Structures are given as C-alpha cells and as structure tokens.
C-alpha cells in the first residue's frame, strides 16, 4: 500500500531512476528443489535499491536488498513485453553463453559467466528504470522492493493468457496492405543491426580463438628456453628469464580475452535489442493488419448502412441477399453495431498511434 501511495505521489517524476538508486550488487550460488522436486543448483542475484531523496537529504540509509533468480528476471521481462507491446523492452543478458570461442567455459555456473550476467542484469534494470513508461509499472516496483509474493502478483495480472493469444496471432501469416514506411525502415534497420552484430560476434569469437592459439604457442618457448638454459653457462640466466617472460606472455591472454568478453556482451545487448525492435515492428504490423481489417469492415458496414437507408443495392452482396430474403434488421440495432465498430476502429487507430509514439 505504501508503495502505491508513493507511486502516486511521484507520478510526475519522469523515471524511476531519478528516484531510486538501483544495482545488482552480487551473486550467490544456491541449491534447492525445483517444481518437480528435483535437486537443482542455481544462481541468485542481489538487487539493492535506495531512494534518491534520502541521499539528497544527506542521509545514507542502508539499501533495501533482495535476491532474484534469472528466471524471475525473465518473467518480469515477459510481463513487460505483454503489457507494453508498443515499447522496445530492453533485452536481458543471454541465457546461455553464445558466440563463445572454444576455450571459454560455456557452463552457466562459471564464475566469469555469472559475473558478466550480473553486469547484464544490472544494465537491464537500469535501462528499464530509466524508461518513462516502463519505470512506472507497479509490478516492476514490486519486483525491486518486495522479495516475496511477487510471482503470484504477476500471474494474477493474467498476462500469460494475453501472451498466448498474441503469440497465436503473431505466428499466423498476414500481409499488411499499406505498410508504414517508418516501420518498414525500422524493420530493415533492425535486420541490418542484427546481421552485423551477429557477424561481428562470430568473427570476434574466431579471432579470439586464433589469438589464444598464438599466445599459448608462445608458452612452449617458455619451457624450451628454461630447458635450454640448463646447458648454457653464460646464457643460462638470460634464457631462464626469457622463458619466464614467455610464460607470462602466454598467460596474459586469459585476462585479455576475459576483458574482451565484456565488449562482446555489449554487442550482444544490441543484438538482442535488434530482436526486441523487430518484435515491436511485428506487433505493429499485426495491429495495423487488424486496423486495416476493421477499416475494411467499417467501409462495408457504411456501405450497407447507405444501402439500407436509401434502399439501393449498388453491389451484390451476401448480406444484401439475406437482408432481402429475411427482412431488414432494426435500424437501431444496426446503428449500435456500427457505432461499436467505429469505437473499435478508433481504439485500433489509437493503439497504432501509441505504438508509433513509443517506438520513436
């Protein structure tokens, strides 16, 4: 309750991030029973939040903190996707390591992977919290501030049913008659972005593989030099130290590539962004399709209306035939129906407008 009050109070404030400091501070490995009562190991991430106004007042309160799993982040994002279909929802870090060069561990429990995911999750939260619409969502607040009962609240919103129906609609094939140029461009752009980032990531993984090879082969020098130094008198020390340097050189590549992984993560974020953008475009297309269908319907309805009121049948239609055969509908009934349609159409147009605005 306090939360909602607070929310209402700060409704004017542009984004959540202006009011709250958010970070994903650390991660922890845990194990427990899953849904089918199987033992599983998972990682939880500590989310810390702190109200900004307290900081501004000079107080330095201990942050509120709670633990969330990756799957809960996923749930949050799915909820946001369904609730705000016209918004490009920031992507989550990858579920499993993709575009890896072969020496890198693909294990989800790998500490480096977990650490990179922690950074990615924090980025996600910050991006969501800095979005003017998303950041004011109550479910998001709940996610950030109350550890328990969140999942239940999310499921209560019934977003899943909506998600399922939308998924069905999206997977059906449809063709928009008058594609919107802006959205077409956006779609092309996101395709381009996606193909470039994925190419880049693939190329990078291969480059990393090779570079790793080059460095590690140098490591062999280390061994040979130190063996060789054993049979030399004057050169012994020099060779020995050359060998050590070679070892150090070979070992340095691990850190270099580990660091480069962060760069790859940023590329990946945009790769997923491209995907999110495409999804929105697709949803827009769907809405536009629905809009077009509705408009068409409206036109035919208007035509019928005219025909009925004037008694002239301009074109042969099934509806006209039935009307002639079974007598006319009550005009009130018809009017009401038309009105309803118009309302629907308006709604559709409104939605499209909304989406256009949000996407831009």
């Amino acid at each position, binding site marked *: 309750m306090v939360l909602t009050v607070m929310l209402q109070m700060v409704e004017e404030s542009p984004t959540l991030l202006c009011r709250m400091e958010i970070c994903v501070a650390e991660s922890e490995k845990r194990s427990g029973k899953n849904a089918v009562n199987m033992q599983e190991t998972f990682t939880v991430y500590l989310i810390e939040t702190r109200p900004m106004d307290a900081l501004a007042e000079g107080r330095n309160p201990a942050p509120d903190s709670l633990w969330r799993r990756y799957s809960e982040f996923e749930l949050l994002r799915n909820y946001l996707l369904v609730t705000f279909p016209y918004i490009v929802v920031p992507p989550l870090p990858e579920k499993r390591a993709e575009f890896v060069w072969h020496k890198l561990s693909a294990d989800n429990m790998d500490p480096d992977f977990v650490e990179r995911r922690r950074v990615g999750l924090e980025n996600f939260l910050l991006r969501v919290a800095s979005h003017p619409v998303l950041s004011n969502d109550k479910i998001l607040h709940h996610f950030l501030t109350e550890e328990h009962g969140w999942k239940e609240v999310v499921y209560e919103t019934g977003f899943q049913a909506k998600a399922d129906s939308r998924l069905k609609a999206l997977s059906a094939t449809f063709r928009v008659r008058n594609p919107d140029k802006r959205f077409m461009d956006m779609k092309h*752009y996101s395709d*381009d*972005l996606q193909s*470039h980032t994925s*190419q*880049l990531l693939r*190329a*990078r993984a*291969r*480059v990393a*593989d*090779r*570079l790793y*090879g*080059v460095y590690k*082969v*140098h490591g*062999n*020098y280390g061994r*040979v030099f130190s*063996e*060789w130094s054993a*049979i030399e*008198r*004057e*050169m012994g*020390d*020099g060779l020995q130290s*050359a060998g050590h340097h070679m070892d150090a050189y070979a070992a340095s590549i691990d850190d270099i590539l580990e660091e480069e992984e962060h760069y790859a993560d940023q590329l990946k974020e945009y790769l997923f962004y491209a995907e999110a953008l495409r999804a929105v475009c697709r949803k827009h297309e769907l809405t536009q399709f629905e809009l077009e269908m509705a408009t068409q319907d409206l036109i035919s309805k208007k035509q019928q209306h005219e025909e009925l009121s004037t008694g002239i049948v301009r074109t042969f239609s099934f509806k006209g035939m039935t009307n002639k055969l079974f007598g006319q509908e009550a005009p009130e009934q018809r009017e009401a129906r038309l009105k309803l349609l118009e309302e629907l159409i308006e709604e559709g147009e409104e939605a499209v407008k909304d989406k256009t605005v949000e996407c831009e």
Partner: protein
Amino acid sequence: MSVGAPRALASSGQKPITEILHPLSAAEEPLSVPVGVDKQEVGLTNGTPVETSSPASTSSLFNRLQLDDDLEADVRDPYADSTEMRDLFVTVDDPKKHVSTMETYITYRVSTKTSRVEFDLPEYCVRRRYQDFDWLRIKLEDSQPTHLIPPLPEKFVMKGVVDRFSEEFVETRMKALDKFLKRVADHPVLSFNPHLNAFLTVKDLNKRQGLALLSKVGESVKHVAGGYKLRARPAEFCAMGEYLDTFNQKLGTIDRIAQRILKEQSEYLTELREYGGVYSSWVGSEEELRRPLEGVAGCVTTSCGALEDLGDNMSLDFLPVLREYVLYLESIKNVLRKRDQSQAEYEGRLEAAILRKQEDRTPMPLEVEKCQDKVECFNADLKADWERWQSNKRHDFKQLLTGMADRNINSYEKSQAAWESLITLLQDKQTEDKTSETS
C-alpha cells in the same frame, strides 16, 4: 635484424660490452683482460686466438708458422672483435640471374676490402655462384680439417616445392652466403687460407686447379677401422658432444614452435581481416556512427599490417638464424668425429708401437709422435673454435632474441598507437554528440 649482427654488436667496442651492454660480461672478463694488460704477450701466441690457456700447444706453433707474416693484424681478442682491428671485409650482395642454354643460375657479387699483404689490391669484386661457395667450403674443410668451418645454406632444394629463383629464396640464400663468408673472413686461421684468397680475388675460378700454396699439415685423417673404441675421450669433448645433442634438440623445438606461431599468426590475420571487414560493412547502415566504425575498421587494418610485418620479419630473420645454427651443429659434429678418428689413429699406433717396443726395444717411432702432435693440434684448434663458436652463438642469440622482442614491441606499439588515436576520435564523437544535444 641486420645480416652482420654479431659484428655490429662487437663493433660497439669492448668497453660497452663488458661494462654496460653485455649481461654475461663477467664470464668474458678473464679472456679479455690479458689482452688489455699485455698485448705483446698475446701477440706471441697469436695464431691461436682463444687459447691463452695452452700457448705452448703444437697447434699454436703450427698456426704461427702459417700466419707468421701477419702478426700485427691478428693481435686481438676475438671476442672484442672491433672494426678498427679487422683488416678483411667481405660482402655478398646483388644477386643476378643468368640464363644460358644449358642452365639457369644465380650469381652473387662478392666484394672484398682489405689491407692484408697477401692481397695485391685493396679491393676486389667478383661474381660467384652457389657452386663456388660450395667449392670453397670443401677446400677449406680439406685443407683445415682441424677447424670448424661455418656452414653453407642447404644446397639441395626440392624442385617444385621451393622456387629457386624466387626473390625470397635468393634473398635468404644471399644472406646466408654473406654470413658464411663473413664468418670465414673473421676467423683468425681460415681467413688466411689461400683458397679463400683465390675465391675472393680470381676472376674466373678454376676449381680443378690445385693450389700450390696448399698447406699439407694436418690434411689427411685416415679412417680408422670401425668399431674402435677410444680409450679415453677427453671429458671436454664428451661434454661438447652432449651439449650439441641437447642444443640440436632444443633448436629443433624452437624451430617447430616458431613455425607453428607463424602458422597460427597467419590464420589469426585472416580472421582479423574479416573481423575488420564486418565493421566496414556495418558503416552502411549506421550513418551517425560512420566515423567511429570506420575508425575501428582502420585500427584493425593497422594491426593487421603490423602483425603481417612481424610475421615477415620472423620468417626472414628469425628462422634463417635457427637454420644456420642447425647446420652449424652438423659441422661441429663432423669436426668432432674427425678429432675422434685422429685420436683413434694415434692410440692405435701407440699401442702397436708399445707392443713392438716390448719386443725389440726400439725407440718410439717418429710416426707415433707425429700422430700425437696431430691429436693435440686437433684438440687445441677445436677447443679454440669451440670457444669462438660459443661466443658467436651467444652474441647471435642475444641479438636474435632481443630483435624478436623489439619487433614484437614495435608491432604492438603500432597497434596501440592506432587504437589510442581511435580513443580520441571516440571522445570527439561523444562531445560532438553532447553539443548537438544541448544546442
């Protein structure tokens, strides 16, 4: 790395080497100090430059006989080889292709500058082909069997595998020939060999003509019946043999590693080029990010260039040196074998003589004494050459490895500079964006 690497290092003078540059100077001191202290004394033992330890050995006598008229020129410590003291300079360069109906071959210009009295003129310039170098080496080996003759680059080249007339091949071979000739010319004994003189000066080398000046001493080492076991091979030569085996093995490994690195590097280069290409093609869809993306692509290209140079340097400079030393090891092993044979011959004769002596009490035949002289001469020469070789090797490898490190640093610096310039570009972009936002 320059071809005259060891020379360049040596010519920086003994002082900086012992005092500053050379980390191993301490080990050299005992050898160089006597020279500084009393040049006269060393001058007497001049023929064996390294062997201050056995000045009375027959070899030094023998060498002195050979080199008598050039005492002054050789008063020097071979390690402190400085330019002022050297009096024979040779260079191999300017390869030319000759095409005749019979064969196609390459000749190289061999230029000589000298102040030695054995030479009529101070300067010579002749053209020689690989065969001629080969002839010289065989002659040197025949006339100076007790000495370590530097190796020539491999004679046999698989047809089809390597193009014998390709620029790279000729260049590499020329460098190796230059190295060979310089090593011979720097050698205190070999450089006075009349065959070398002929090789450097005569316009048309008549390879069949035997040279009258040819020294017969120590020439024939007869093969001893196989299976003869040396009674006591001096420990130092045993150690030499062992050293050679291990060193050979290590060189082989290093060579393999270097080859592998080259291979990995070229594969890396291919991938890196592709990677840079992706950035360039990305520019097409990101008008606003054109400059940064092009910048990144440019950086990758620069890095590729630096890396390519590094690889070229490696295959042009690093690998040939390894190669030369592998061949050198063969030469040393040969000399060691000949030494063993000579010792075996001596021991065989000695044994026979002792037997005879017991029977008829004749004095030790002259023959045996000669043999003994020969062995000692062999030992001394070999030891001297060994020390000389060791010192050269030290210089060469120091040079080689420092060179490699330098080139690596150089290459990395180039890439680093490129990336650093990109940082400023990106920062410019950021401030640009900010100003455009505020305005």
